[in-house]
């Protein structure tokens, strides 16, 4: 009786486990088949773009190719290929996505492609064909060898987790890993077309803070000054790390005391400015309101030498208020020079700061008077938007280029939009959707 019962229990457990494994396996198979499908589709559309004569058909093929490349990327992200390097393939798909996106956008305005772009396109198409063939080969290895992604995942994870010496040879060798390796090796052998002048340049790293390099002692001094501390009782504040971030930074640890927890401050190696700061104390019940916190944050900035700061956003969560400020110069709001200040609502004091952009970019700016008037700028804004009076602002794009713009605040239904119109050309530069407190919605 007992034996029968236990046997049944074990059998049931086994069946459940098997069912889950089959489901997981099916999900992986689906993702992999989608990778194959979209890389294949990508190759097809690139081919069509090669053959197309009209700008319309070319643009259509590019748009479809872009859609396939993005879908392929997303499907790769669902595969358990944790310890199999696929970076060359991913790089390729990323480059093709950027290339096809740019050309599809340009094609929408009726422009055709140049001789050089056609040659790049042909290189990409050939490479995509190779990738599609290799992936299909891996797919065949799966079905022929009755291999399963779930087994593959177990093997590779176990191998990856136990390599102590930094050699990637721990990945077990089977038809699948061999297939992926062939794919990767092949992808690296293709010429990598120079996309300069075709694509917008990649986003650059943040530059260093202006100024000479400072010593670790100076960094500690800067951190203590920022917190308004003369000295620290007991253990000394010290630099615990030098971080090769952009910009490079000293990390200063200030031991707890006088109602503070441990405080971490990053001070730029060049210029010795505080990039960010955070107090680790746990936060208790609130004793002040977020509105009061705003004044605390503004006073804090004023006392630390941040002049003419205007509030641009505010939010409160989990016992803290976070207030965003940007610098204002001669009535122009300079968005690149922004900081955020965190105020603990229990103690009513500033317990966090983030001002990397401000420290990197802040300077007295020189800009000419806007070439177009407010009225002319307004003509560029969608007339369906009820807009409030514009203000002048400087915004920055992904490449750290600054533009003088008119900022219009408008609403459709209950949603708020910030519309930026170039103050020299009258072009609509950017649209941002924000919450009621100026916080940008994702």
């Amino acid at each position, binding site marked *: 009786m007992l034996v029968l019962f236990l046997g049944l229990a074990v059998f049931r457990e086994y069946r459940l486990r098997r069912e889950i494994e089959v489901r997981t396996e099916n999900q992986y198979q689906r993702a992999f088949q989608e990778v194959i499908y979209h890389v294949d589709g990508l190759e097809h559309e690139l081919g069509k773009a090669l053959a197309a004569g009209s700008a319309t058909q070319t643009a259509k093929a590019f748009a479809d190719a872009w859609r396939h490349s993005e879908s392929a990327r997303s499907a790769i992200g*669902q595969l358990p290929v944790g310890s199999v390097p696929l970076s060359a393939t991913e790089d390729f798909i990323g480059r093709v996505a950027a290339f096809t996106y740019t050309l599809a956008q340009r094609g929408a305005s009726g422009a055709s492609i140049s001789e050089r772009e056609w040659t790049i396109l042909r290189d990409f198409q050939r490479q995509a064909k190779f990738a599609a063939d290799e992936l299909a080969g891996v797919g065949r290895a799966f079905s022929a060898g009755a291999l399963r992604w779930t087994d593959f995942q177990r093997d590779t994870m176990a191998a990856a987790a136990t390599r102590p010496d930094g050699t990637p040879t721990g990945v077990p060798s089977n038809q699948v890993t061999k297939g992926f390796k062939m794919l990767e090796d092949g992808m690296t052998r293709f010429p990598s077309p120079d996309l300069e002048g075709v694509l917008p340049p990649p*986003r650059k790293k943040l530059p260093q803070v202006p100024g000479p390099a400072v010593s670790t002692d100076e960094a500690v001094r800067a951190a203590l000054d920022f917190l308004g501390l003369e000295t620290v009782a007991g253990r000394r504040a010290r630099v615990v790390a030098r971080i090769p971030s*952009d910009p490079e930074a000293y990390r200063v640890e200030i031991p707890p005391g006088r109602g503070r927890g441990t405080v971490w401050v990053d001070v730029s190696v060049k210029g010795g400015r505080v990039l960010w700061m955070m107090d680790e104390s746990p936060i208790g019940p609130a004793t002040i309101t977020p509105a009061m916190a705003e004044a605390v944050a503004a006073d804090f900035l004023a006392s630390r030498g941040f002049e003419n700061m205007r509030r641009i956003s505010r939010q409160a969560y989990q016992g803290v208020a976070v207030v965003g400020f940007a610098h204002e110069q001669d009535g122009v709001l300079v968005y690149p020079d922004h900081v955020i200040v965190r105020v603990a609502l229990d103690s009513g004091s500033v317990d966090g700061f*983030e001002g990397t952009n401000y420290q990197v970019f802040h300077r007295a700016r020189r800009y000419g008077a806007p070439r177009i008037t407010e009225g002319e700028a307004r003509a560029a804004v969608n007339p369906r938007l009820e807009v409030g009076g514009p203000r002048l602002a400087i915004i920055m794009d992904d490449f750290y280029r600054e533009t003088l713009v008119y900022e219009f605040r408008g609403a459709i239904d209950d949603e708020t939009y910030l519309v930026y119109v170039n103050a020299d050309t009258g072009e609509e530069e950017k649209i941002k959707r924000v919450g009621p*407190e100026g916080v940008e919605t994702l």
Partner: protein
Amino acid sequence: MQRAGRVFAALVVLVALMVVLWHIHPHTGSTAGRAGRGVERAATESASWHLAAPGQAYSYNFDLMARVISAEAKGEPYVGQVAVGAVILNRTQHPHFPKTIPGVIFEPDAFTAVSQGTIWLPPTSSSLRAAQDALAGWDPTGGAVYYYNPSKATNWWVATRRFLVQIGDHIFLR
């Protein structure tokens, strides 16, 4: 009678053993890694004044991030919790990772907490704040897209990454 008892005890041990074996994972320790990926960090949007606000997509993302932080960085200093959130956000900006927060979090084998299901435990209150701080723009990692706990996991891929900083038990790399 005694014999039946012995058989029963043996079976119980056997079943217990099987159950245990079924639940053991080949990999342990908090690790955010997908091998062979990533060369250079794209400067994050945290650079511009990019703050998040309550909205539907946002609250889902934020809750997920808090869960990962809670499960991956339990017992870590607060800054280390914000750091895990920052790694998730940095990945969404990196060409080798999915573009969305759920995409990054649910990449197979990317986070131990996801593989082992511990992200479905209720998040701690400090992890909720840490997720918000990361979304608001704090990045204590200096732009990391990987981290691992050297005492729990040794992964060969770490040798190919650039060391940035250690916070608590986690080493952050890009």
